[in-house]
């Protein structure tokens, strides 16, 4: 009975040292992973709401809707991302990554979407991470979103931008749609170089395919809407009509 006890005794001893999370997990005492999963689900849900909110924007209500979305995003950060920040430190970032990765990806999607709609530019990973820093008063190693989750979130962003582009075109904002096309083409091109370098790139590979579909949807819509701007039949007299709506 020595053998058995030594093993368990060891495990029990490890339980008392709070840093050694894997032993405690094994003994079923530690439910950190479960709490991380729950926080991640909340982040996902709220990020999705922010994204949908942004889609409601049009020329007239843009400022109002965007401000609201940004406020909701900030609330998500403070209420839910903060829970992740509190749970995770050091080695957890990688050990528990699968438990929070989806939430963080959706969060990146929401944050970069807001930024694009506000400024037309790409929100960098450093900027996101710097907004997370103040949430961790107790840790010396605050949660840093890793590049993989950031890039996976960015891949999803292109789907939202596709929806946005088609919506903008319906609202007549063709130039804005052109801008989105350019932005999305650039992201796709950059990710073409990056995707194969990423850890375990099967997930990213799948997203690359979806992304190409999104890029092509934007391109195809723009084809009929800008280039194909009809000149009034084969006589081709038109310098009026929709083209006037662009400026």
């Amino acid at each position, binding site marked *: 009975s020595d053998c058995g006890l030594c093993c368990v005794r060891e495990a029990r001893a490890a339980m008392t040292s709070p840093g050694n999370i894997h032993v405690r997990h094994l003994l079923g005492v530690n439910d950190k992973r479960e709490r991380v999963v729950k926080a991640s689900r909340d982040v996902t849900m709220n990020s999705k709401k922010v994204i*949908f909110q942004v889609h409601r924007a049009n*020329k007239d209500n843009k400022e109002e809707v965007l401000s609201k979305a940004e406020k909701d995003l900030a609330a998500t950060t403070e209420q839910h991302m903060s829970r992740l920040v509190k749970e995770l430190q050091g080695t957890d970032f990688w050990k528990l990554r699968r438990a929070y990765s989806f939430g963080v990806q959706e969060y990146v999607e929401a944050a970069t979407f807001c930024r694009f709609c506000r400024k037309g530019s790409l929100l960098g990973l450093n900027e996101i991470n710097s907004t997370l820093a103040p949430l961790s008063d107790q840790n010396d190693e605050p949660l840093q979103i890793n590049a993989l989750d950031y890039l996976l979130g960015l891949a999803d962003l292109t789907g939202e931008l596709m929806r946005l582009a088609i919506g903008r075109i319906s609202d007549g904002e063709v130039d804005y749609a052109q801008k989105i096309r350019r932005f999305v083409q650039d992201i796709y091109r950059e990710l073409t170089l990056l995707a194969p370098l990423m850890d375990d790139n099967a997930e990213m590979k799948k997203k690359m395919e979806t992304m190409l579909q999104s890029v092509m949807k934007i391109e195809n819509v723009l084809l*009929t*809407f800008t280039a194909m701007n009809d*000149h009034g039949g084969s006589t081709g007299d038109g310098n009026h009509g*929709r083209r006037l709506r662009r400026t």
Partner: protein
Amino acid sequence: SSMESHFGEFIVEMEKSGNIRERIRSLASEIEATNRVMHAGLLLAHQPLPIPEVLKKAESQRGVLRDLYGRLAEILHECPGQYYRFHGDWRSETQTAVSLLSFSHWLETGSLLTHAEAENKLGLDTSEFGLDIEDYLIGLCFMSNELPRYVVNQVTNGDYDCPKNVLKFLTELHSAFRMLNLRNDFLRKKFDGMKYDLRRVEEVYYDVKIRGLAPVESAQDHITLDGG
């Protein structure tokens, strides 16, 4: 043995619900057939026929549909609280029915068939067996998918008023949908499709306008469109 009698109860229960499911499926396929007939009638809208004539065929099926939903309701009354257990067996047919009813309603009145009106046309009461809101909304998306084709054919048939009216209707419908927080994947995808319908109708409207075929717009029209 006691185990046998215990499981025996389940067999009875499962056979009962299997029976209900079978009856529901059989009804659902009758609904589908009715939808097909109604759809065939409404397809005439794409040809140069007077609207009342088009609607006549569809209307004749409305009674059949109402009757079928009545029988569906009866079955569901036999197993209270199990609406959503069997929902998957008729929901796709119901979505199609809503799309057809709302299309013919729009042809007739130019306005949207509301949720309450849809329930009413199907003879449903909201207490036990109502029309699921998502089914209603998906049905509207399906209806929207028919509109570009309708506009194209109407213009081909010489009706140049049509694009503007459809555009106005669709713009409003689209912006109403935008208010909803659609997290349901299927509905959201269908709603994404509506954007394409809107774009196509807009395109036809401009085709018509650019060639001076559209009736003269008033200033008011412009505002509504821009704000859409």
